[in-house]
């Protein structure tokens, strides 16, 4: 019995043989799909308490790996003299865990795309109002998906194209990505500038001490950090630039520090930074409490 495990490890049981690897791999993946999806009727047969127990356990174990890896001491040489002093016994598990989480993360991102396509397909099939726009969306989706996947595969040398198909791919992707998607994205988000300008004029009302402080700070920062602030201070007002010379009198020191760029930087470093730090501390403590609640499934409605 003792000899079997080292033997199996020596044979590398985790790796498929090189001969016919593609066939074996395909079979294993199909098997995995059958096995994992075949579990669904079993899971479905569980009572609500059993279902919750599974979710709670998985959540706890996923958190435990990273929490324990962080909290356990790295240096175990007192017990295991040959141990690596930079990592503990859980550290090697981070690698496979990261691969798993990246893969699941990609599937989670794909969920949004799936939901979007599903919705618009329904719009088209059921001829809902303005379904024509859904057709536009689906055509754009399919065209871009084809070019994007082909382009990424070609970069990795997984898709080898030559001559005209290669030129079509390159030019097509450039038009779709550089000249269409990028431009639409940039234009869409630049709309906010118009709205912020309109809102500033119509809604920014100085009615309280708080609003006055906020607006005064915003104005000093808005002018002080841009080149115009320096122009007003040094060219128009003639204030001296740079730090005051050593041993200068109080008057000179004040003159050297009342220019708009210096005031703006002082506001940002001395008045803004501690306020942001206080917010950070609030977020940190709140985040820690929330992390513990989520990890232990104490937060209702999430797990």
């Amino acid at each position, binding site marked *: 019995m003792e000899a079997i495990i080292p033997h199996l490890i020596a044979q590398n049981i985790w790796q498929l043989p090189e001969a016919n690897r593609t066939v074996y791999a395909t079979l294993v993946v199909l098997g995995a799909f059958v096995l994992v999806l075949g579990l669904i009727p079993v899971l479905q047969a569980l009572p609500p308490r059993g279902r919750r127990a599974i979710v709670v356990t998985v959540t706890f174990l996923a958190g435990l790996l990273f929490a324990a890896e962080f909290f356990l001491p790295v240096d175990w040489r007192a017990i295991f003299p040959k141990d690596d002093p930079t990592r503990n016994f859980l550290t090697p598990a981070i690698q496979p865990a990261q691969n798993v989480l990246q893969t699941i993360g990609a599937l989670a991102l794909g969920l949004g795309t799936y939901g979007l396509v599903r919705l618009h397909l329904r719009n088209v099939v059921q001829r809902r109002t303005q379904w024509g726009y859904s057709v536009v969306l689906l055509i754009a989706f399919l065209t871009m998906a084809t070019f994007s*996947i082909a382009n990424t595969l070609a970069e990795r040398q997984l898709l080898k194209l030559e001559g005209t198909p290669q030129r079509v791919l390159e030019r097509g992707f450039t038009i779709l990505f550089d000249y269409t998607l990028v431009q639409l994205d940039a234009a869409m988000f630049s709309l*906010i500038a118009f709205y912020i300008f309109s809102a500033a004029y119509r809604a920014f009302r100085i009615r309280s001490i708080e609003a006055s402080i906020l607006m005064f700070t915003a*104005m000093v920062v808005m002018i002080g950090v*841009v080149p115009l602030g320096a122009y007003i201070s040094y060219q128009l007002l003639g204030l001296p630039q740079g730090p005051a010379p050593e041993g200068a009198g109080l008057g000179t020191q004040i003159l050297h520090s009342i220019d708009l760029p210096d005031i703006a930087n002082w506001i940002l470093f001395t008045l803004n930074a501690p306020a942001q730090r206080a917010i950070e501390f609030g977020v940190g403590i709140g985040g820690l409490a929330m992390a513990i609640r989520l990890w232990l499934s104490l937060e209702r409605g999430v797990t």
Partner: protein
Amino acid sequence: MDWFMEFLPRTPERLGIWIGVICTLAIYSLLYRENPFYRFFEHMYIGLAAGYSLGPLGVDVLYRYWVEPIWVQGYWAWAFVVPYGMYLYFIFSERYGWISRIVIGTLIGASAGLFFQEFSSRYLPQLNSTLQKPLWLSSANPDLTVSMVINNFLFVIILLSVLTYFTFSYEQRGGVKRFATLGRWFLMIGLGAIFGNTVMARMGLLIGRIYYILNDWLMIPIGGAQ
């Protein structure tokens, strides 16, 4: 005349720029009012963005972390990851929806477990930095000036007052309430700085677009000489 001939979309690059400008103007037409031209490009934008993501997601992630380890390297155990992740897609089903929570639990549990390290490496050094701020002149810190000490004092007072303002565990009265009010005013300074910077960011994005229209499309050279 030369300018006009160059301006026309006669080369692939010029054609691309024309497409880019049409896209931009279509989006900007919303500013006048909602219209079919805008709706068309809006839907095209969403479709393109969703379609584009499949390249990086499929090849950079799924190929790299799932296909390649199994089919090329032969590590068969990875085969279970994608079927397990596919449980997520039951979220749309009323009957089987709960199954997606197993995978969501994996993601949430991992994030929660990772937060302990974040708390220690992100927040504690900030606490440490605050506690190390010298509040008086001493021979141990020969480089320290009076203005630095004043600034340090201000820093600590602002931090404490804003934290007091954020403390809701008891009713604030008297001096504590006044200190918390001071904290609220200092918080407004932080928010004012954020507002000022937000305006700057948004203007920057619009300027980028107008630059594209003027410089790339209309070919009016906009120099950066200082």
